[in-house]
């Protein structure tokens, strides 16, 4: 522990696309956050490539850690603990960060802390900001996750609902593909939708039964497909290969209408959850939290519910290691650390 008592944690993240490292003080003050994005690689190949991803993580991990330490102007002697994402994610990718973290924890004789990647997204809004006012409802949505949590503290989370088919970010990507747009689809749809008519097409809002807090985006994706390519059996357009018959402004209207439907569903579920638990804060996390229509809808929702609104800046919405190091401080504070046998876990659900 430093003489001033402020504990410094080095965080490492390698669960999916990004190799990242960060140095964070006392859970919130980010001294450095370095992300070696593989997105250019993936754009070239059109998706997450685990074989390449795990190799790229291996190539990047040492550099990224060294850069994070350098940017934070700290040496090993100033680091109080090593935190690492150990679940959920691709095993091959997780293992790279995990091995690096274990090695440093062993070599520097520091505690090791295993962090859940999705829990860290639900905490990211506290970075470089005020502590989150609990209880909170956190909506984490990205390409691989769409989940609602009740949070009673940074480390006490209860899953309230999750997608039963496609994740929200996946729906954005697949709809972008249906519309002939690029990858990743989220930002493309977001920017096309600006100025377009979100009421042009009334796509379904799948809310599931009763007061369910689960999500389903598969039907919405299929509705967009039918709209663009025609309903099978009723027209000869299907299976068209591309939305060649739509004008650019029609494509933008479809993108805006799809986005409106997806955002409506996310907003409605978040509202249900917030009312149910009497949330004092609404927290967003994950890549889809960068979507401008979602941010606007949740901003209005928070005003109506008189909740505190916690929207992380873009750099903390996307995968990063600052959220790992930040959340880990709370575990360290409670004396919860791992040993060197900490395992990587692929899927943690329900």
């Amino acid at each position, binding site marked *: 522990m430093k003489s001033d008592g402020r504990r410094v944690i080095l965080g490492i993240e390698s669960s999916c696309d990004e190799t990242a490292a960060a140095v964070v003080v006392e859970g919130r003050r980010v001294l450095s956050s370095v992300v070696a994005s593989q997105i250019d690689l993936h754009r070239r190949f059109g998706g997450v490539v685990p074989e390449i991803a795990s190799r790229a993580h291996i190539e990047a991990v040492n550099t990224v850690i060294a850069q994070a330490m350098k940017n934070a102007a700290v040496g090993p002697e100033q680091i109080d603990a090593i935190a690492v994402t150990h679940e959920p994610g691709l095993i091959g990718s997780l293992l790279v960060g995990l091995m690096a973290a274990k090695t440093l924890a062993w070599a520097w004789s520091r505690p090791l802390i295993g962090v859940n990647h999705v829990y860290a997204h639900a905490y990211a809004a506290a970075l470089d900001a005020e502590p989150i006012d609990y209880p909170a409802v956190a909506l984490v949505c990205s390409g691989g996750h769409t989940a609602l949590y009740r949070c009673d503290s940074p480390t006490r989370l209860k899953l309230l609902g999750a997608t039963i088919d496609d994740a929200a970010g996946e729906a954005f990507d697949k709809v972008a593909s249906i519309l002939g747009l690029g990858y990743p689809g989220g930002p493309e749809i977001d920017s096309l939708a600006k100025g377009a008519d979100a009421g042009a097409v009334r796509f379904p809002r799948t809310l599931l039964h009763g007061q369910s807090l689960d999500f389903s985006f598969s039907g919405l994706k299929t509705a967009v497909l*039918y709209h663009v390519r025609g309903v099978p*059996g009723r027209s000869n357009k299907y299976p068209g290969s591309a939305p060649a018959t739509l004008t650019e402004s029609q494509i933008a209207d479809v993108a805006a209408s799809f986005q409106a439907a997806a955002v409506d569903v996310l907003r409605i579920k978040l509202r249900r959850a917030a009312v149910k638990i009497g949330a004092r804060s609404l927290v967003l996390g994950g890549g889809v939290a960068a979507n401008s229509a979602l941010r606007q809808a949740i901003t209005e929702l928070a005003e109506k519910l008189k909740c505190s609104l916690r929207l992380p800046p873009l750099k903390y919405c996307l995968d990063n290691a600052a959220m790992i190091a930040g959340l880990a401080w709370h575990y360290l504070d409670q004396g919860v650390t791992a040993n060197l046998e900490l395992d990587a876990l692929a899927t943690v659900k329900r």
Partner: protein
Amino acid sequence: MPPEKYRTSSLAGTLRLGRKLAARLAIGDCVGLVGALGAGKTALVRGIASGLGLADQRMVSSPTFVLVQEYPGRMPVFHLDLYRMSYPRAELADLGLDEMLGQGIVLVEWADRAADVLPNRRWRIDIEITGRKSRTFSVQPPQSGPKPAGRKRANRI
């Protein structure tokens, strides 16, 4: 043998078909699913996993981003998706396809994207969208041939 044909007219019908097919699957079986976006590949997998004893059907979600999901049933059910794989041979090896086949049942979405990488002895299921809710399933069981050693039948439901 010509493929078996099934028609369903709702999501519930697709789930029922999946449960029915599950009774014919055994450890070591690989099922390749082919069909356009929205055809119902994940829905059929949900039915199959449910038929194999998965209690919580909500666990079955699209593995497009996470690439592989494992569900606990009477035997492990591995749900894979080739949609995003650019080097499926290396990637499937990396994910442990052989180990999965040794432990349980492997269901692969977008199987046509790397047909040559999957075991040749596999179930082939093609899904055609025939109407807003109706789908036609063309099911080709594995052609008879040498069965992998240690093969065990799945429990019938």
